[in-house]
């Protein structure tokens, strides 16, 4: 089964979804740089119909943390 969030990260970072997991972060994913963070935010906001605050963006340092933030904001299909 595919995961919406992992697929989104794979698409934006241009890496295979199989290379990503919940612990993926800028430290262990070379493609995840500052610009990628911006593009991830834009894609997440569009995909999950949410608006992220600066502090929420800064705290999304792993895919698991991004998922937790989105679940808190009421995004569907992520749990």
């Amino acid at each position: 089964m595919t995961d919406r969030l992992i697929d989104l990260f794979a698409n934006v970072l241009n890496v295979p979804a199989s290379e990503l997991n919940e612990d993926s972060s800028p430290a262990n994913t070379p493609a995840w740089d500052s610009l990628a963070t911006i593009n991830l935010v834009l894609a997440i906001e569009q995909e999950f119909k949410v608006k992220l605050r600066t502090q929420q963006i800064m705290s999304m340092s792993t895919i698991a943390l991004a998922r937790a933030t989105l679940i808190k904001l009421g995004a569907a299909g992520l749990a």
Partner: protein
Amino acid sequence: MVFTSPIFLFFFLPLVLAGSWLIHPRLLNSFLLLASVVFYAWGGAEHVPLLVALVVANWLVGLALEWLEERERYQLKDVVYFACIAGNVACLVYFKYVNFIFDNINLLLSPAGFTLPHMAQLLLPLGISFFTFHLLSYVIDIYRGAARAQRNPIDFGLYICFFPQLIAGPIIRYHDIEEQLTQRRVDLEKFSSGAERFIVGLGKKVLLANPFGQMVDQIFALSAADLGTGTAWLGICGYALQLYFDFSGYSDMAIGLGRMFGFEYLENFNYPFISRSIHEFWQRWHISLSNWFRDYFYMPMVMTFARRAQLRNPGVRRKFDDRPLLALVFFVCGIWHGASWNFAIFGILHGFFLVLERGALGRFLKAKPAVISHVYVFFVIMIAWVFFRCETLQAALGYLSAMAGLGGANAADFPIAAFADHRILLLTPLALLAITPLFSRITRDWRARAGQAFGQVAAVGEAGQSGVLETGLIVVRPVLQAVILLLACAYIAGQTYNPFLYFRF
């Protein structure tokens, strides 16, 4: 007061350390703040009122922002926030850039007979670029909700004014240090690792940066006609080493001093000369400045423009092109170093190559052997540092022409041997060794912490470390550090040449 002055090493530091051990813990921050103000006043007492006024004003604004947030008065919060940011920036611009701006306006307007006054008496407050960035970090963190407003003005004052980082950084983001202001501990292990780090920094500054600096000053004092190609390259390579050992040595001392008082600062350098791109260089050089620009300037600006672009084309998912903004960030980063077009060009050059690396150049470098990337980085940073070192555009262009083999009409009168004396020849292999990760074995702890501290920057040089080597280093390291300390003290006692390059920023 500079860290390498006898008054700091033999009087101020021992006194403050002794005081911090003897004083009641509840009064410790007040004592350290007072000591920091004395440290600052030693270099320029006339600007202490300005520093105090800025600290008090920003502390009050922090409280106001939180109060307004709790009462959901968001519009007023925005007004207070932007007024505070504008006030801090205006203060920096007034002291650092007003003459530069006026002179350039005058250049444009003088044909029309209109001139603005030159403020000849304006003294640059020591460390203003650094403490302004600390103040901005605090206000932005509170506004974003990344940290709670500091209730205690003494603790807030210590964040801005603590003497290890007050004058030349590292630039510490408030959210990184908020807890340590009230909860930190010093044990023997931490204190000794801080002291060791301080000694390494002292050695870098006094035993490496200063001798190279003396050679560099002599070479850069020559006119383009007197500069041979070899001498010009010797001068700029020497300057690269001087600048690195000067500033990374200062950062080592600041980090070491911080540890001796219980603070953990993030690393400021991570062997920049091993970089394979300009992008990587800025992840390794003056990291605290790059982090500051990324978090408080680049990210919010790019986010704003990216959202606007998306609003114009709703439903279309496109990747945002940040290249113009990236160039702007590096222009500002260049001019942050000083009010001159040379610093601006330094920033523009770095921004230009960063922009190119986003495209075909980046792909080319990734596909080619590492040596090509290293050669590319070497040429870019050396050329950019010519603008950084020379005081005028004309001098920089003359120096570059000598590097390109177009100067040096009288070069025979000033051969390389006249500058590269036996001391430089002896120090060069040591310096080249010290710019590689091999040097980290002497600073016991920081490699282990590097992975956590840097986040994105991977630790290097860990693999292949044998048990025998490590055991040997445990014995050799303290001996080596004792030798560094003794030599550095001997040098300080006997020499007058001891400038700190980053103090003027």
